[in-house]
């Protein structure tokens, strides 16, 4: 994680599913290829749903961490 340069961080803590995913999708849509968008979430579904979406859309997970009930997921825009 220390080597990952985050371009934009989105605080979606407190939002219910699929709020954090929607915020990430918006962030990725407006990002440049190569940018890393990080999303902070307390929604348990995000840790599963976001990697699924990232894989399906052909982007990359830069890191996925959790501390207690909080998840921190960073996604690199590939295309």
């Amino acid at each position, binding site marked *: 994680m220390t080597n990952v340069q985050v371009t934009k961080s989105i605080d979606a803590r407190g939002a*219910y599913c699929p709020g954090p995913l*929607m915020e990430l*999708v918006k962030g990725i*849509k407006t990002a440049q290829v190569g940018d890393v968008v990080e999303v902070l979430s307390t929604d348990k579904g995000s840790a599963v749903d976001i990697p699924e*979406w990232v894989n*399906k859309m052909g982007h990359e997970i830069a890191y996925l961490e959790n501390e207690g009930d909080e998840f921190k997921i960073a996604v690199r825009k590939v295309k």
Partner: protein
Amino acid sequence: MEQQAPSLAVILLSEDLEKLHAGALVGSVASMSGMTVNVFVTMNALKSFRKDSFENADFITGTIGKEMLAKKIPLFDSLLQEGKDMGELNIYGCALAMDIMDWQEEDMIDVFDGVIGVTKFLGMTQGATVITM
């Protein structure tokens, strides 16, 4: 990557808030995941899309629907709009039910792409995965 049908048809029949929300949720996420989504709103579901019903939260709710309203989470209108904004999601009112009730598209919340019959909807969703709520 696993195979997935590129097109999804969501048919909303019920005025139950949970069913409206679940259908809108699946449709919006499918849209932002690259699928073409067409939503057909018919029968009692149309009532929930009326501006007056929506403004008064005039929905049928169960345990989870009541809590959704109490917690003021974004409802099906918001989910469907997000699906439209971030992918290809179209919403159509059922011509039959609209005619029976003498409702106009202007009476509905501003998410509709038109009022169509079943024949048109079947034509645009041929081969699609279908979800009925």
